[in-house]
């Protein structure tokens, strides 16, 4: 499936870009995106945690993506 990753904070540093276009058959859910990221960029596993958001909402791993969805990669937040 074709999706677009948008990354912030340290996730942007790991991806070396704020936006990454993906076209991967094995990606159907947000869980698949997490597996893909851990494999392609092992530094994600060094993070305390990381979450994904779609349509400005945090999504669990079973969230079904649609073609051309934008998936936000959210490393541990540290506002305040």
């Amino acid at each position, binding site marked *: 499936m074709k999706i677009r990753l948008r990354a*912030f*904070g*340290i996730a942007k540093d790991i991806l070396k870009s704020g936006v990454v276009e993906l076209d991967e058959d094995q990606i159907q859910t947000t869980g698949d995106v997490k597996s893909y990221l851990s494999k392609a960029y092992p530094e994600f596993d060094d*993070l*305390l945690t990381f979450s994904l958001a779609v349509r400005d*909402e945090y999504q669990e791993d079973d969230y079904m993506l649609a073609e051309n969805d934008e998936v936000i990669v959210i490393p*541990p*937040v*540290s*506002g305040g």
Partner: protein
Amino acid sequence: MISVKISEEKINPTNSYGEVTDPGVGGTVQFVGTVRNQTKGKKVLRLEFEAYESMAIKEMNKIAETIVAQWSATHVSIHHRVGTLEIKDIAVIISVATPHRKVAFEACQYAINTLKERVPIWKKEIFEDGEVWVAAHP
């Protein structure tokens, strides 16, 4: 009334208070988060804050709406700065005005705790010899 804002402008407690007060409000609790000059003894030169703005605003609104619903707050203001902040600059101000002061303390504490847990804002500490995304690693 709810006021939620993310901006690069300086923020100050009196303005935040002004947003939540009205002639019917008796007590306001404010939390002010400030840029510190050190982390674990290491000198911080400045900070850089970055937000995923549309979602951060949405999450901040959820916090404010929860406070109005659960603690009967009259007014809530949550403002966060982004961009480059110097030592002593204010990063965030939360003001909660309620009819009864006890719940204002609870609600304001809920707001800052939840903001630090959920709102997609990230800060990078700049040291003399490098920089670190705060809280990224265990």
